[in-house]
């Protein structure tokens, strides 16, 4: 086994994860074939003797032959298990191997002792137990490999090489040598080596492997591209902006790996039992043997029962129940651009009653555009230009919309400029003091809105955000900005409503605008006029009525995402907020929310099923073995089947429809 690892490692170099799982499966398979070659003759001899009372070879010789055949099975092919098990007994780090090795070694020794006639010969049984154990491990490792196939694909997704342009020449270099600022050439059909920006060329790129977005995305000069996505039809020159651990793919992998390590609360009990399981079984075995000896006084029978108890107990099924389901689930999610960061979210999700959506950038595209300009004196251009001079200094998306609309070449000098968070901006151009903002701000400054209010309200009814412009405390007009709703927001929210969730939209916008947008997408409840810093507080209030999931971007909404019971952070382009959010959606679509919820629920159900089976198996099987109802070989088969069942059941999760 060790040898194989090294071989694979040197083949792939140290930068990639070797397929550990494959090496493990291969090694079990080899042991499986070899051990059965020796075990089948043993089984035939034992069966014919027991059932037909017929011996192929005369008696002590047949026993000697069985002992000889069983030796390699237990001590050569099973050596890894025996060694680990015996060592565990001395270091007190007990595991599955401790039980199997004790069971088989004791059984084998009976074969030697049998010559002086004290006990029955269980040495053939030892070989059969080991062979079935190895078989079970092989099937289990294969099923585990299947459970992790998507994640492994993700780990192996990154490009291995890059074509770099230096001067007028191309060089092919390993991906690890690409530096920030390098210009990379990508031909059609090739993988984008790393995250960067297109400097020359046009093409469409298949990004489905990292964002779940099924349609190819058009790229031209200035577009950002993601490493590991596939260039489809054009030649692209890309400047590398992120390399190594900072790339989008590296972040996704980090998220997935971390999630695998997080514990789901429901697993805690199983973990506790697993950790004391083996010593408990050892004690139970001694008690069983003693009990049988006292009541029956027959050493052979008592030993048989004790061996059955040793090999039937299975901490594996308990320990595998949660991680395998989580693994399959992460894979299913990752393929759709859903990254479950904290396993706990899977359990919490089923308790969630309300789903709170941030408006801008979550329900809407987050790219507001100026749709209407109303000037009191009819000079629309003058109004937007004046506004643009101030808004140029702000970084708010609405400010940007106004600046883009005006498209000024030169800006006037603005003095004593101030951003009034959540309300607007103010500043001086020459001697004129200009205030631009919402109604709240105008009221604060005691600016009369009588003449403009009708226009403002009309725009707001249409779901637009209004910015009132005033000069020297006099209103001169209003600019209306609309942020289009994302294509599938409505479909997603309808699905959630149908599932019985209370859907709520939260926004800094005024009530009228907010309600108009909410109506467009089918949300019934609106919490408007909320300053960004107060979103978390609103979530806290809602939590009094039941668990809350919050959907928002990971940057501005981080406190609300943390406050909520399940925070779902929407990815924007190549930035996935690693810190905020229990679940991260790589693709900015609300359908991802529906999928994430369905996936979490299906996964949790699977985990519960698995834990139930694992518990039930041990609770039923162990007493049966103690009672002497199970032959050791049957006990071993049952044990192997129990962990295989759990892993296969986890794989069945894939059949669930979550879209």
């Amino acid at each position, binding site marked *: 086994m060790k040898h194989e690892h090294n071989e694979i490692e040197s083949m792939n170099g140290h930068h990639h994860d070797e397929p550990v799982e494959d090496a493990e499966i291969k090694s079990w398979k080899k042991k499986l074939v070899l051990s059965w070659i020796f075990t089948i003759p043993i089984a035939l001899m034992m069966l014919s003797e027991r059932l037909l009372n017929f011996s192929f070879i005369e008696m002590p010789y047949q026993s000697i032959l069985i002992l000889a055949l069983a030796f390699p099975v237990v001590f050569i092919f099973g050596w890894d298990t025996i060694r680990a098990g015996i060592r565990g007994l001395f270091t007190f780090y007990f595991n599955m191997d401790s039980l199997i090795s004790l069971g088989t070694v004791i059984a084998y020794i009976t074969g030697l002792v049998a010559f002086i006639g004290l006990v029955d010969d269980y040495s053939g049984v030892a070989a059969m137990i080991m062979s079935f154990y190895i078989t079970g491990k092989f099937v289990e490792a294969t099923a585990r490999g299947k459970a992790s196939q998507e994640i492994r694909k993700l780990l192996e997704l990154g490009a291995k090489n890059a074509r770099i342009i230096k001067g007028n020449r191309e060089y092919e270099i390993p991906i690890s040598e690409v530096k920030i600022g390098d210009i990379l050439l990508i031909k059609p059909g090739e993988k984008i080596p790393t995250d960067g920006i297109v400097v020359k060329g046009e093409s469409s790129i298949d990004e489905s492997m990292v964002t779940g977005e099924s349609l190819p995305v058009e790229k031209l000069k200035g577009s950002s591209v993601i490493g590991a996505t596939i260039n489809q039809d054009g030649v692209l020159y890309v400047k590398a902006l992120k390399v190594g651990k900072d790339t989008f793919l590296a972040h996704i992998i980090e998220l997935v790996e971390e999630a*695998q*390590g997080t514990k789901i609360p429901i697993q805690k009990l199983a973990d506790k039992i697993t950790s004391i399981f083996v010593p408990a079984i050892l004690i139970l075995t001694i008690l069983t043997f003693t009990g049988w000896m006292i009541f029956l006084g027959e050493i052979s029978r008592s030993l048989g029962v004790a061996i059955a108890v040793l090999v039937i107990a299975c901490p594996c099924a308990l*320990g595998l129940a949660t991680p395998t389901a989580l693994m399959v689930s992460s894979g299913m999610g990752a393929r759709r651009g859903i990254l479950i960061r904290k396993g706990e979210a899977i359990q919490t999700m089923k308790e969630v009653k309300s789903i709170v959506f941030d408006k801008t950038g979550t329900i809407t595209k987050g790219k507001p555009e100026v749709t209407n300009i109303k000037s009191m004196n009819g000079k629309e251009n003058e109004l937007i230009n004046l506004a643009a001079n101030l808004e140029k200094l702000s970084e708010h998306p609405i400010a940007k919309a106004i600046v883009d609309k005006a498209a000024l070449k030169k800006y006037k000098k603005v003095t004593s400029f101030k951003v009034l968070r959540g309300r607007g901006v103010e500043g001086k151009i020459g001697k004129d003091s200009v205030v631009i903002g919402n109604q709240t701000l105008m009221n604060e400054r005691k600016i009369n809105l009588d003449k403009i209010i009708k226009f403002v309200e009309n725009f707001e009814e249409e779901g637009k955000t209004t910015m009132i412009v005033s000069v020297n405390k006099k209103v001169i007009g209003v600019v209306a900005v609309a942020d289009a709703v994302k294509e599938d927001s409505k479909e997603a929210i309808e699905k959630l409503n149908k599932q019985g969730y209370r859907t709520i939209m939260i926004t800094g916008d005024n009530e009228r605008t907010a309600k108009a947008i909410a109506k467009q997408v089918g949300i019934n409840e609106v919490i408007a006029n909320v300053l960004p810093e107060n979103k978390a507080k609103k979530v806290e209030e809602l939590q009094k009525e039941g668990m809350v999931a919050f959907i928002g971007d990971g940057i501005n909404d981080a406190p609300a995402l943390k406050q909520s019971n399940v925070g779902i952070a929407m990815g924007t382009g190549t930035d996935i907020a690693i810190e905020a959010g229990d679940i991260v959606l790589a693709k900015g679509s609300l359908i991802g929310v529906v999928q994430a919820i369905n996936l979490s629920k299906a996964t949790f159900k699977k985990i519960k099923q698995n834990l139930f089976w694992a518990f039930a198996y041990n609770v039923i099987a162990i007493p049966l073995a103690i009672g002497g109802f199970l032959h050791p070989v049957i006990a071993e088969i049952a044990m192997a089947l129990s962990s295989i069942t759990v892993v296969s059941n986890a794989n069945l999760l894939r059949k669930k429809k979550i879209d």
Partner: protein
Amino acid sequence: MKKLKLIIEGMHCASCASNIEKSLRKVNGVREVSVSLMLKKGIVEIEDFVKEDELKKAVAKAGYKVARIE
């Protein structure tokens, strides 16, 4: 405080993972440990003074091998 990823060889059952966790937790300066049987990896959060060798030894004590540390 730093985070390390251990690639571990030889794990094949759930009690293996919990044994490794137990052993790593005993190392002075180890804050958080989580070992994944499925990924054959362990993530440890450690104080800066903890040496990689100590982690390797702890894993070896439980009967497994650290293939590499990232």
